């Protein structure tokens, strides 16, 4: 099960409405159909910020 973003109102578990922009967990087969219909989109996870090591000034201990 993977999370997707609703692009249209969806009927979620127990008949609850998942409004546009909200996340929903779907199996791969269901997601394939809804992605093809442009009814959901993949959630792009933001990449974690890289830690930049600053060069130590020469002579520093």
């Amino acid at each position, binding site marked *: 099960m993977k999370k997707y973003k609703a692009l249209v*109102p969806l009927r979620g578990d127990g008949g609850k409405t*998942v409004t546009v922009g909200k996340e929903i967990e779907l199996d791969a087969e269901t997601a394939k159909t809804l992605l093809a*219909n442009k009814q959901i989109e993949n959630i792009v996870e933001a990449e974690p910020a890289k830690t930049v090591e600053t060069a130590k000034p020469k002579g520093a201990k």
Partner: protein
Amino acid sequence: MALVPAVSTKQLGGGRLYYKDGNDWKEIGKVKEFKYKYSTEETEGTSHDGCMEEIDDSRISSSSGEVSFVTENISEENVANAAAGTIEQVSYAIGNTLPDETVATKAVTIPTIKAGKLSMVEKHLKFIGANCTQGKRYVVEFYKVTLKSDSDIAPQVLKDFMQIPFTGKMLATDIADESELFTTYLIPAG
């Protein structure tokens, strides 16, 4: 000549209403009110022997009856009967838009009632009274009732449960043992 006092036969209201479905009796369910009325019409005989016309005979010449009940059971059958409609099971696949404008994420079958498809909703009804006072159980059977719902159905009133009101006309049948409009049974306790 003796004075014969009446035996107390008070009954508390309450009971269940059923309709015949093949060989089974299915409960209409959550019946809030149930009433029936039996009416007769008379034909009068008159004589003109004197100066005034006088009624000298009176006979019941016709009878009719009505039932009415209110149910809070919003079943497929009750909704269909209220709309003189038929029930269709409509299937929706994943990705289809449903009647509430949401998109199906699972295949779903939705009972769908199309109004006005029947010219008559005819039921064989039976009311079985609850034996609340340890007295007689009051049972009434109506062999042929044409039902209709001509009062308001208000699904959006939040302070009350949704209700479907029905009225019905009792009709005679051609079946030998069921030719009367209705039969009442007073089943003794114990």
